[in-house]
């Protein structure tokens, strides 16, 4: 079943076409990786999908509904969740508060003000922290966490929103090898209940996780297919993998 599709999606920044007429379809339940050289428009493309920025042209459909002009906080309500690169946790708040912010957003949406009952909020937050293994650090300030833990916190905040589509922007950047292994395991368990869209530079992570890969170059989709197909694709090799 089709979860997300874009048609002719474009975004210009002062004459530069960062995303140039992208037609893209994402099936429910898959893990999709978007790869491409720097400046290919990957980040801009997912920013358009989650609503951080608006498109210059084209449209976006989610579960059959046109969301092109919908503000980002309402897209979160539909289940489109974006996890940032590292700089976007609340560094001056505790881990608990970081995740609680995501949890209460979801509870408020699903149950109204009654959803914000103190104990329910607390239990839900703690169980999400447990999911990524950060529960012993719940009172620690997020800014003082080790880098890998900050990454996990970011993922926990995404998970707490119960995403249907989880967009992760370079999630393994700066992680140690052992942490990457752990991250892949976590992503696979997330994918059991959500569709995952991943921007990733680490090719071994991409090859291991992705069901399908979309290759972008100069704002357009260059190729799309299974990891094996992409590996064999001559255009991709020329543009990205280095012939």
């Amino acid at each position, binding site marked *: 079943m089709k979860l997300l599709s874009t048609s002719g999606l474009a975004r210009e920044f002062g004459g530069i076409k960062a995303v140039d007429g992208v037609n893209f379809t994402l099936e429910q339940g898959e893990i999709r990786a978007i790869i491409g050289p720097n400046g290919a428009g990957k980040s801009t493309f997912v920013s358009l999908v*989650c609503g*951080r920025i608006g498109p210059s042209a084209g449209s976006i459909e989610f579960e059959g509904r046109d969301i092109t002009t919908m*503000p*980002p*906080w*309402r897209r*979160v*309500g539909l289940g489109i*969740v*974006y996890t*940032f690169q590292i700089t*976007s*946790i*609340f*560094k*001056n*708040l*505790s881990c*608990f*508060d970081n995740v*609680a*912010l*995501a949890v*209460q*957003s*979801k509870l*408020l*949406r699903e149950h109204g003000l009654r959803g*914000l009952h103190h104990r329910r*909020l607390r239990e839900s937050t703690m169980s999400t922290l447990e999911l990524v293994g950060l529960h012993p650090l*719940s*009172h620690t300030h997020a800014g003082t966490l080790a880098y890998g833990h900050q990454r996990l916190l970011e993922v926990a*905040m995404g998970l707490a*929103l119960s995403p249907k589509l989880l967009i992760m922007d370079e999630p393994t950047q700066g992680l140690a090898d052992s942490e990457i292994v752990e991250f892949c395991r976590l992503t696979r368990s997330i994918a059991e209940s959500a569709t995952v869209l991943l921007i990733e530079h680490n090719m071994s992570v991409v090859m291991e996780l992705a069901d399908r890969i979309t290759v972008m170059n100069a704002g357009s989709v260059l190729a799309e297919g299974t990891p094996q197909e992409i590996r064999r694709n001559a255009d991709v090799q020329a543009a990205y993998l280095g012939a």
Partner: protein
Amino acid sequence: MTRDNTKPLLLLHVGLLLGLFLLQFVLPAYHHTNMTRIMLLAAYATGYNILVGYTGLLSLGHAMFFAAGLYGAGMAAQYIGLNPAAALLLGIMCGAGLALAAGLVALRTAGVSFMIVTLMFAQASYLLILYFNDYTRGDEGILLSESSRRLDLGWATLDFVQPTVRYNLALLVFAACLLGLLALLRSPLGRVLVAIRENPERAKLLGYDIFRYKLMALCISGAMAGSAGACFALMFGYVGATYASIQYSILVLLWVLLGGVGTAIGPLVGTVLMFYLVETASDYTSSYNLFVGLFLVLLVLFFPRGIVGWLRDRAVPWLP
């Protein structure tokens, strides 16, 4: 905002309020009146701090909300003969209502533009007060009759002219604002406001319509300013345009900066210090603002996070 420090927190704040209550029995008459004013101004500053300290919105026009309470309560009591309790309530609603109206426009901007737009609204309010001179009596102001400041409870009469009544009512208003702030900080709403201060972009992508939350913060802040303004009118019997002037928008910013932006008791500390600084300096010279200015330069150099903020950084990290 972690939930470990409930006990010391309660001890500190209830202790502080108890101290303020006991203070009235030892203060000489002159300082007794000063403290009454200070507590009301601190309530105003506490509301301001919700906006600037916890939501990250710097308004340069907060005097208009104070004045809305002042005029709302004062004119209703004087002209319509509304009893003081109802007038106070009306004053609070005027503060919150004006905040809602101004916020719907001003909150479409952020940062420096927000400062300018709020400043502009406040100046417009000030000029409106002067323009409608027939009702507001402009610069000269309205003196409220003593009869309009008396609340008949049936079994007793609460006279707002009486120092003891004034002091305890001011304390009650300040306590309500302080405890309201503390409750807000421990609530899910407070958490969202702090998140907006720290990183609005991230808050948006957690599913929060930050415009609505900022508007809520502005209304709460406006209501607190309105309550302080209304009490000022009813207790001291004077309603004048000075209170709507830019001076009172800047003063409240200074009180909060001095005490500590984003600290619960900072506004009170800042208001007391600044009040007595001006008081002491003006004993020696008519250009007391020189001393105030010098003091502020020193503050920025050595205590950029305010007095309570400095304490929190060094010794008591659990201060809210």
